[in-house]
């Protein structure tokens, strides 16, 4: 394990440099409308996708952590997840659903593959992170997710200013939803830091579930608000030049590798922290015993 980390770090650094070279170089054309400023997209969008992925992992980890508290709950959660997968796959091939999917431009088989990922992901995470490690995964992904989300919220307005002339549009559904997501997870981290209770982890997991339930509602509320209030036209829709998409995906892969390494470091840090805390606790227990023993003269038994 030990030598692996520096090797991966170097490889990731090279990968990121390559992605940067592609992003700024001749490999991608200059945008007709925006000029070269559009290249912010190669950092903005991958950061967003990475943040959302990390928050999704946090959600799965939180659900599993809550489910594991009780044996019956754990079994129920497993069956629900399997049920979601089975029902989802069957539903993808029902005629009405097929029609709806194709009208959105999606193929039913692709949707079914995505749906099967949900239980697969759930069980994979459950297998890889037993016991307390599930909670460490939760705090790791939340923290690193907030870092990437901050980058999205910083690069977003920096991009908006030259393109739209304003830093922020209240009805911009993507940025505003991301802002709310950021707020929810910052409050999650604050709860973790300020809570001294032995069951902080359980409370935080419950908060993560609330946050996940909230996200679609946030999206809909802003979406409807936007339809009633005219907003600046955002050049987000429409198809992308294939070369741009190609570089965007490469950039995302590079950032995913980077995010993986950061999460790994944070994970090891948390494991180390808990070891130190345990060692402290053990010392105060053992230390007290040793002290009382040492105070007795040799040869005398303790009465």
């Amino acid at each position, binding site marked *: 394990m030990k030598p692996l980390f520096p090797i991966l770090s170097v490889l990731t650094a090279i990968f990121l440099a390559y992605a940067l070279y592609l992003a700024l170089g001749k490999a991608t054309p200059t945008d007709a409308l925006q000029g070269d400023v559009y290249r912010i997209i190669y950092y903005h969008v991958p950061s967003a996708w990475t943040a959302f992925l990390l928050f999704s992992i946090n959600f799965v980890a939180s659900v599993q952590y809550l489910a594991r508290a009780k044996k019956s709950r754990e079994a129920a959660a497993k069956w629900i997840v399997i049920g979601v997968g089975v029902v989802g796959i069957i539903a993808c091939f029902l005629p009405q659903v097929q029609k709806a999917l194709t009208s959105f431009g999606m193929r039913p088989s692709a949707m079914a593959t995505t749906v099967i990922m949900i239980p697969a992901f759930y069980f994979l995470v459950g297998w890889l992170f037993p016991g307390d490690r599930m909670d460490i995964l939760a705090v790791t992904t939340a923290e690193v997710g907030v870092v990437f989300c901050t980058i999205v919220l910083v690069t977003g307005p920096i991009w908006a200013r030259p393109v739209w002339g304003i830093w922020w549009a209240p009805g911009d559904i993507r940025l505003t939803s991301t802002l709310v997501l950021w707020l929810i997870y910052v409050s999650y981290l604050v709860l973790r830091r300020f809570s001294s209770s032995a069951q902080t982890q359980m409370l935080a997991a419950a908060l993560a579930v609330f946050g996940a339930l909230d996200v679609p*509602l946030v999206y809909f509320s802003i979406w409807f608000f936007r339809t*009633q209030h005219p907003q600046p036209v955002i050049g987000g829709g429409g198809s992308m030049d294939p070369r741009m998409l190609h570089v965007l995906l490469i950039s995302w892969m590079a950032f995913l590798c980077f995010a993986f390494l950061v999460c790994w470091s944070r994970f090891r840090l948390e494991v180390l922290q808990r070891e130190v805390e345990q060692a402290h606790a053990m010392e105060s227990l053992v230390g007290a015993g040793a002290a009382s023993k040492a105070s007795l003269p040799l040869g005398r038994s303790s009465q």
Partner: protein
Amino acid sequence: MNSLWALTLATLVKDIRLEWRSKDALNAMLFFSLQVVVIFVFSFDPLAEESRHIVGGLVWIAFLFAAVVALNQTWARELRNQVLDAYRVSPAPANALFLAKALGNFLFVVVLQALMVPLFVVFYNLRALGPAWQLIPITLLGTWALVVNGTFFAAMSLRTRSREIMLPLLLFPISIPAVIAMVAGTTAVLTGENSAHFYIVLLLTYDVVFTTACLALFETILNAE
């Protein structure tokens, strides 16, 4: 099921009776609400043309402050007399306690709103240009949205440092869709420019989703101390 409601009602009646006898929280909240209204009147000119568009937001900010002040003392009485520990040990369903607290807070905030609304109407010369009856479901559903999550997060914040700041910190991000719906819905009714129908449906969905979530997870939270 019967015992759940009986227990909820009993706890609720106890809380109301205790509050009625002391009236300390009620008086503090009333005066606080009046102050908030007055500050808004001085900050945002009631006679300006745009005031009709922003009053929806102002009213709900005032309600939000009042609700947070009410929510912060939800569990204070229980902590003082170790009632929570007694409740944990008893076979009573935890949800009865939660519902009683949530309903108590709801009634409390609605009373405050009933007292603040005439003040707003007077100071801002309010007149609904849209269907005024829609304000009732918006208010009731919106208040429940704030109160149900607020009671839950108040329980979560019990053993945290800086408990009073923890509650709004947790509550506000989660409540954003409800607040958008409340404010936009109220504005829609007051200005008559668009329909509040979608917002009422959104509030209803929000309430159903989060009431279910709170009831499902409250026992975990209660025992997590």
